[in-house]
């Protein structure tokens, strides 16, 4: 419902501003194809590695090893792969999320929490490498600790809000 209203407003506003809606839509949608091409290899490597990791039983071993510590923190072990890859690669995080959706379902508690965690965080290290790398910055000063603290905040509030909204 709110999305439908948003789309209507956008279309009316754009028509009012004399935008060629059909042409603009097609131009935008065309950019989706290179994007999908770019993310596919990362998705494939991560999904393949994750599939072996799960099928072999290594995932169960790791989660039973981590679960005492994670239970204290109230973190579902199924969220660990997502949390680990999130700061490095957006595509791998999408693969991890989609893996969680297949295993547990998008409307399970795990699926809902994973969605919030992915949606509220960013690929911190990738952004860092891209932006500072582009101008040859070696000394990053407060950027790394501040970015990591902000990431940490999004994880903590994401977990807290999930238990508030979904339990």
């Amino acid at each position, binding site marked *: 419902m709110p999305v439908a209203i948003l*789309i209507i407003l956008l279309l009316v*506003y*754009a028509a009012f501003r004399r935008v*060629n809606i059909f042409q*603009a*839509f097609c*131009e*935008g*949608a065309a*950019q*989706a194809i290179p*994007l*999908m091409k770019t993310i*596919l290899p990362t*998705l*494939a*490597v*991560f*999904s*393949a*590695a994750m*599939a*072996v*990791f799960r*099928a*072999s039983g290594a995932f169960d071993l790791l989660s039973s090893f981590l679960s005492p510590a994670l239970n204290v923190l109230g973190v579902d072990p199924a969220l660990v792969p997502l949390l680990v890859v999130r700061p*490095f*690669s957006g595509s*791998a995080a999408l693969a991890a*999320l989609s893996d969680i*959706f*297949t295993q547990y*379902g*998008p*409307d399970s508690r795990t699926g*809902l929490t994973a*969605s919030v965690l992915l949606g*509220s965080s960013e690929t911190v290290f990738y*952004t*860092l490498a*891209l*932006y500072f790398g582009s*101008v*040859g*910055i070696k*000394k*990053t*000063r407060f*950027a790394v600790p*501040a970015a990591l*603290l*902000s990431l940490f*905040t*999004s994880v903590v*509030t*994401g977990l807290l809000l*999930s238990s*508030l*909204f*979904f339990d």
Partner: protein
Amino acid sequence: MNIVILFLLLAGIGVSLLSGTADGVLAALQSGASDAINTVLRLSGAYLIWMGLLNIAEKAGLIRTLSRLLSPALSLLFPNAGKAKEAISLNLAANMLGMGNAATPYGLRAMRLLNESNPHPGVATNEMCTLLVVNASCLELFPATLVGLRASCGSVRPLAVVVPTLLSSFAATLVAVMLCLTFTRQCRSRS
């Protein structure tokens, strides 16, 4: 990322060898990789529709409008941005609208312009750090990819996550902004 993949593969293949299920390794790898195609196909609807709609929004001048709305807040966050200010505000506006692809070129341009007036090349200025931190915690007004993936994976409530997601990313952005203000203030009072 390299280490993560290596760990997953070594541990996965290692455990299969130990438990005598090594014959299943290739099948698991291949089914995992073809799952990736399924994920891309599931995302394709969200990508095509949102990138189309967002391009309409851009053509209608929505990024410019939003970046104008942001500009008072930006003067506070980036007092010495100089001529990079426009690129910064366009970068943040595009990020807020969920247009990561449109945001990156503006962000890189802003970095380049900031670097031109950098007295110590190789050392990040306050403005550069702040731009990076805000980008690394960016507030998105509507998580379109996420909702799209949920819907195409059969969720009956794809939108159920929107409010907690926005609140949580708002908290992260707030922390990022406060930290940047604290650090830059400290540096200025010291110099």
